[in-house]
């Protein structure tokens, strides 16, 4: 049964990928890439990676196509030229692929419980994290504590992205007080759409909070929560326009929040250092190490959530601002 599911998902993935490769309509390609994201999220579920599936669904099928659609609205939807360099590219790709397939011949069989990947480092996470960290979701334990520094790096990457986007598109972000006749973005003439979305915005935010604080027990965590929270605001922006969204939360606040989340994460590490332990050693946060771990994870997940939500909103605002600029010119 699992094999059947596996094979059908994989073949759908291949079909989607080929569809993207041959399509010259970029809108269709982006749509397909969003489907690709959703399919791979499904695949991750069959591989027991529920946290990853959650993230991939919100990124691969959510934020990433959204930004691409915004870009297409600005740059146009059709490819102009047929593919160049097809033959040398094909050669290179076949060569790389052949090398990889050769490489897989010696790796342990798929699902083998005795593979080195399963027997060396991982058993400690599976057997000990319950007592060492004290939360059921091992992925959160590893993510936030054992490999907490990677996650710190991850937040910094998100922060680096927003610095780049602001540097490139920041000039079209509306400054305080500047009027924005953004009729283009307002879908307010769609009455049904408006009413339904208005109903949904608040539950989505609530769900974001649930994901944020329930990440210890089930799939979820700061990143997913941040994306979902941002999605609520983005829906609001789409319906009522950028200007209305800015009244709720303005760019300066978002910028400070984006930086604040990273600082919050780092300060947990610094507090641990001041208490005489190593950077990010949450044991130092409370008398009882397991409590300390718990506090540490809650705070850093909050930091991740704040930064991610602020960054996603800022990036969307920057793109939407560009779109408005453009509709002004034309």
């Amino acid at each position, binding site marked *: 049964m699992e094999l059947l599911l*596996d094979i059908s998902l*994989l073949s759908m*993935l*291949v079909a989607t990928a080929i569809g*993207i*490769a041959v399509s010259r309509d*970029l809108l269709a*390609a*982006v749509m397909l*890439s969003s489907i*690709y*994201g959703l399919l*791979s999220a499904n695949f991750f579920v069959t*591989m027991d*990676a529920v946290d*990853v599936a959650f*993230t*991939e669904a919100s*990124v*691969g099928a959510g934020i990433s196509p959204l*930004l*691409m659609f915004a*870009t*297409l609205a600005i*740059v146009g939807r059709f*490819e102009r*030229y047929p*593919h160049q*360099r097809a033959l040398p590219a*094909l050669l*290179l*790709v*076949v060569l790389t*692929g052949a090398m*990889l397939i050769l490489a897989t*011949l010696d790796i342990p069989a*798929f*699902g083998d*419980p005795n593979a080195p*990947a399963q027997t060396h480092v*991982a058993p400690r*996470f*599976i057997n000990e994290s319950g007592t060492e960290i004290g939360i*059921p979701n*091992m*992925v959160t*334990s*590893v993510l936030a504590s054992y490999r907490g520094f*990677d996650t710190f790096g991850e937040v910094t990457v*998100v922060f*680096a*992205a927003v610095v*780049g*986007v602001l540097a*490139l*598109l920041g000039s079209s972000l509306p400054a305080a007080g500047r009027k924005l006749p953004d009729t283009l973005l307002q879908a307010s003439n769609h009455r049904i759409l408006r009413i339904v979305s208005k109903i949904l915005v608040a539950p989505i935010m609530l769900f974001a909070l649930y994901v944020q604080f329930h990440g210890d027990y089930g*799939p979820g965590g700061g990143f997913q929560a941040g994306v979902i929270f941002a999605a609520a605001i983005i829906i609001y922006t789409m319906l009522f326009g950028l200007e209305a969204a800015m009244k709720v939360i303005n760019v300066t606040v978002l910028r400070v929040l984006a930086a604040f989340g990273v600082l919050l994460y780092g300060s947990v590490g610094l507090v641990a250092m001041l208490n005489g332990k190593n950077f990010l050693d949450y044991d130092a946060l409370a008398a009882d190490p397991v409590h300390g771990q718990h506090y540490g994870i809650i705070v850093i997940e909050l930091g991740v959530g704040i930064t991610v939500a602020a960054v996603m909103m800022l*990036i969307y605002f*920057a*793109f939407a601002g560009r779109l408005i600029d453009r509709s002004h010119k034309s």
Partner: protein
Amino acid sequence: MSVLFSHYNYWVVIVLMMIGFYIVIAQGNLVKKLIGLNIFQTSVFILYISAGKVSGGTAPILADGITLYSNPLPHVLILTAIVVGIATTALGLSLIIRIRDTYGSVEEQDVRAAEGNRKQESC
């Protein structure tokens, strides 16, 4: 034959990776390149996650009565990698918008042609 059954998963993933890689290098539209990059990266993620699957295991969330869990470590790595991927995509898309503003096109061919003209002028 047994190799086929125990490894077909990896091979399909490699085919996916290579389709993505092909789109990146062979196609001239910049947005398409980024889509290809996304597929390439997502397929690498699938490779990692496949490596963490244990036959008969369940999702790595502690629950009563379950003894066999899949490996959580690749999941953690890929969570990080997905975030890195979206960060790159966002930055790449903003670059594309600016390229469109300055060159009037998002086709590699047009941009290269514009570059070439400029170089000749300045020489």
